[in-house]
């Protein structure tokens, strides 16, 4: 993200300035330096605040007043933590999700107090104020001294002549104290200073990177969501995907029922109604209507059977993946070789998702790939169920275009599964799905 270098953009690859030389001018370096500088006042403020909260709260704990004071202090610490996260985001490019918002069991100040005191995140924010202070102090001193000395020495050859005390002296004291005093000519002094300054300035970006790395760790570890909370939010999003796909499935089934069997049965009822009316006066016409109705019933039955299979194939429940996938392959217009190598059956939900993964992928093979043959392989690898669908079509399947493959990947993700698509233009295509076994 840090491409905003101060150095002029290179005109040709040959004139490119090495990254190491550009670093002292890069926006990233200066932002990190700014962060380290700002850390001092911010840390002082937070430290003073934390000390005040703890001492006041603890001091008042013998009276009942201490508890709400402490809770209010923790709420303030969370607010300061949010500012710190914003500062880290702006200057360090660090994206850290904040802790979960407090959810008091009931409305009212009592419940809020309890929630604040019970939340580990609140205490971690307070801890940050204490831990960050000494670190920020040291880092500030080191960074500012290093950077100031570096630039001063680097520019020494430019400005030493302007200092009245140095002007006209034949020799300059390069290093003094401790008995030995070294005098060199002004030119040599300038050269040595410049070289040392250059080293300091070139090393500065690395130093800042290292120092801010500690800041990043502190922010992530103490001001971020706890790993458990992060997992919870991940699961929540998975649950959302699952609910969405379930709703989409229901809509699809309803559509198919509405457009297919329902319309057919309504037409059938209509034909039979007409036939009933005509039975006495025009038996021939009635017979024709009954004949048409008979045909419609058979078609409606076929459609219902297909729909039921689409919801959950009976053979999958009865016989497992091998026979179910063979039956699926037999209905695919492209010849499919199926090999299922499983000694036992995985969890029913996993079986179902594996089946629909293959079903979707074979639908793609038949619809878009132009393949002449395809293969389905299913095997177990440790705690994983592996499903591979390959075809010799023209490839170019893109999982990112928000189409069927993206939906499939989301569905697999909802059970912690993964979809890997290898489909170079020109083919062949191999799609691998990896699902937890959960037997």
């Amino acid at each position, binding site marked *: 993200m840090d491409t905003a270098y101060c150095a002029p953009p290179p005109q040709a690859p040959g004139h490119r300035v090495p990254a190491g030389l550009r670093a002292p001018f890069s926006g990233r370096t200066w932002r990190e330096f700014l962060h380290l500088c700002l850390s001092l006042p911010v840390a002082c403020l937070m430290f003073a605040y934390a000390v005040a909260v703890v001492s006041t709260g603890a001091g008042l704990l013998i009276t009942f007043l201490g508890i709400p004071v402490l809770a209010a202090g923790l709420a303030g610490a969370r607010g300061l933590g949010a500012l710190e996260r914003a500062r880290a985001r702006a200057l360090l490019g660090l994206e850290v999700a904040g802790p979960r918002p407090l959810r008091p069991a009931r409305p009212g100040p009592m419940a809020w107090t309890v929630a604040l005191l019970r939340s580990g995140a609140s205490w971690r924010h307070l801890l940050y104020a204490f831990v960050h202070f000494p670190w920020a102090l040291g880092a500030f001193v080191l960074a500012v001294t290093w950077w100031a000395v570096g630039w001063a020495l680097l520019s020494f050859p430019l400005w030493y002549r302007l200092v009245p005390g140095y002007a006209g002296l034949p020799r300059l004291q390069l290093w003094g104290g401790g008995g030995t005093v070294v005098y060199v000519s002004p030119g040599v002094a300038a050269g040595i200073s410049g070289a040392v300054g250059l080293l300091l300035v070139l090393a500065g970006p690395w130093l800042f990177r290292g120092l801010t790395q500690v800041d990043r760790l502190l922010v992530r570890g103490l001001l971020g969501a706890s790993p458990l909370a992060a997992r919870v939010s991940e699961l929540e999003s998975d649950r959302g995907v699952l609910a969405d796909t379930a709703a989409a499935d229901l809509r699809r089934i309803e559509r198919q029922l509405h457009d297919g069997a329902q319309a057919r049965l*309504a037409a059938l*009822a*209509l034909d039979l109604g007409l036939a009933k009316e005509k039975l006495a006066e025009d038996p021939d016409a009635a017979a024709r209507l009954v004949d048409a109705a008979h045909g419609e019933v058979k078609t409606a039955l076929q459609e219902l059977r297909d729909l039921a299979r689409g919801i959950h194939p009976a053979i999958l429940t009865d016989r497992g993946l091998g026979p179910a996938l063979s039956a699926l392959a037999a209905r695919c217009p492209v010849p499919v070789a199926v090999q299922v190598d499983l000694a036992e059956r995985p969890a029913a939900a996993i079986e179902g998702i594996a089946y629909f993964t293959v079903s979707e992928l074979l639908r793609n093979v038949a619809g878009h790939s132009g393949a002449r043959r395809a293969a389905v392989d299913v095997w177990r690898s440790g705690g994983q169920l592996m499903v591979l669908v390959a075809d010799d079509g023209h490839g170019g399947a893109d999982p990112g275009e928000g189409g069927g493959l993206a939906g499939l990947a989301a569905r697999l993700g909802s059970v912690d599964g993964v979809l890997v698509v290898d489909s170079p233009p020109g083919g062949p295509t191999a799609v691998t799905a990896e699902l937890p076994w959960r037997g």
Partner: protein
Amino acid sequence: MGGIDVVDDRVRVVIAEDSVLLREGLTRLLTDRGHEVVAGVGDGEALVRTVAALAAAGTAPDVVVADVRMPPTHTDEGLRAAIRLRRDHPEVAVLVLSQYVEEQYATELLADAGRGVGYLLKDRVAEVREFVDAVVRVARGGTALDPEVVAQLLGRSRKQDVLAHLTPREREVLGLMAEGRTNSAIARQLVVSDGAVEKHISNIFLKLGLAPSDGDHRRVLAVLAYLNS
């Protein structure tokens, strides 16, 4: 205007239904009964266009029979097209067919209090005679509400305490009346005399505190407004 004697009158119909099978079935059914199907379309836009073109040519249909759910969104375009037709061409009656009966749809359709509105469950086409009756009734400015809608209205109405005062027979009559049936049709259905039906109806209006009104359609609207309030 009794149920059965209007069957002989020719009615000009436009059918909007996306399932070709059903569209053909409906066409067969209506032409078989001597009515004229002047157009069959497959979506709401085409329905509005066709009716506008027919009306511009001075040959507006008497009634439109429209499926609620049609392409492109497969939600309620048939209903929305019907409501638009009610506004733009009040002289054209509208009978809406639906796979599911939603009282909300019926209320929207009846909201403009115009004449000639119907809302029926699609399955009702199987009862050929009754369905054709309903088409003709609506074409003539009457009302046809599906018994399920009426049952929903009766069940959901907040006037339960008043409704509880009706005798079972009066509730039956109220239901049939809300469906839009004429006195003689109600009498035929319940196998009683026209006079008995009239007596039940005046009792119902008395108990509900409604002013007796003549004209089947206005009567239906009064009852529906009462149940909905």
